[in-house]
């Protein structure tokens, strides 16, 4: 999947509102919601929180974020069989994640990583990028 790079200026433009929405959805303090904070590891988010968060981002930004899109985008052009093997993300998959989730500290993306645990990597900045991609998609 080719994708125009997302600039820091674009991320900075949506970050304050994304951070407020994350804070509201998770019930945590706004100052805990840093760009690099992992929602699951640092802010105790659970799967229901992701559902809540995606709905709030859709309403807050007036965009559509298709279900499953975030994980699908993370896998990118790699077929599932090349991205994971027996539920564990392959070396090619890890390389793809380091590239796609460039906001995630590289030392968090290490083997063995279960494919089902990829959302554990997602940070506030990941969701900024989700919003920016949805805004771009809406503009065609």
């Amino acid at each position, binding site marked *: 999947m080719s994708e125009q790079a997302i600039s820091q200026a674009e991320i900075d433009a949506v970050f304050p509102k994304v951070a407020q929405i994350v804070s*509201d959805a998770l*019930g945590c303090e706004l100052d805990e919601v840093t760009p690099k904070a992992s929602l699951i590891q640092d802010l105790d988010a*659970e*799967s229901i929180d992701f*559902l*809540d968060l995606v*709905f709030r981002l859709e309403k807050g930004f007036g965009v559509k974020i298709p*279900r499953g899109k975030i994980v699908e985008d993370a896998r990118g052009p790699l077929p599932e069989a090349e991205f994971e093997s027996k539920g564990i993300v392959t070396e090619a998959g890890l390389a793809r994640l380091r590239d796609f989730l460039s906001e995630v500290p590289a030392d968090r993306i290490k083997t063995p990583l279960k494919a089902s645990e990829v959302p554990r990597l997602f940070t506030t900045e990941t969701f900024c990028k989700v919003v920016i991609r949805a805004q771009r998609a809406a503009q065609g």
Partner: protein
Amino acid sequence: MSGRFRSFSFVDRITRREGGRVEGHFGVPLGAHFPASLMAEAVGQLAAWSAMAQLDFAHRPVAGLANAVHYHALPQPGCTLQLQADIERCDAEAVAYSGKAFVDGRLALELQDSVGPMLPMDEFDDPHALRADFHTLLGAGAAPGRFGGVPEPVLQDLQAVPGERLSAVLQVPEAAPYFEDHFPRRPVFPGTLLMDALATLSLQLAQQSAPLAAAGPLVTQKVSQVKIRSFTAPGAQLQLEVVLQDIDAQRARLKVSARNDDKTVATARIEITPRGAA
């Protein structure tokens, strides 16, 4: 007799299903304890029937989120709730909807922006039986008066700091008729009954706290930012806590939560007002 499709079912008949709108009704039996939170359950169940049918009963929504529930009137025994729900979106991941309950044409409850995560139906109930029940609701309807009430919440070990906070242990029963219906293959303590217990505790704290303590009978006016984060099994002991955020002569706002050991099971905000002020 099995409690399935009776002991925790709050739609007697579905009268209209068109586009995203679904309408139906439920008769509140005489002599059955029916807390106000069950009006929200009834609206949620109406939306759930429509959503499950849309997904051919392969998935069902379980618990979830509600942005706000506004209470305008208390349900009286013997009244008929006219129910409506508007389904905003529905897929194998979640159903999102809003809805209302009316009594005698007057708005009794409003549910705004609710989201139910979808889970595999097989885990909770028999898809074929549910499909048959759905056709009953679309046709002649289910037998009215089959709901026998729910027990009052058992709150123990209450510890209060009046004007500040109140905590209690909610003993979830090991067995109760509603577990046969919610759900037949996997009993789960209903989130609306958990919210009822938290509202009961919130009312107690507001009644002990100045200046609302002098305001006479109080009612729950609004429950917002409801989030049910995990399932509660029969026999669980939940630690409930309600904390006053602010209070004046017209209203108390509280932050409420339920925990099971270290895990937060549910969170919400509750607003209490003097009866008649809502």
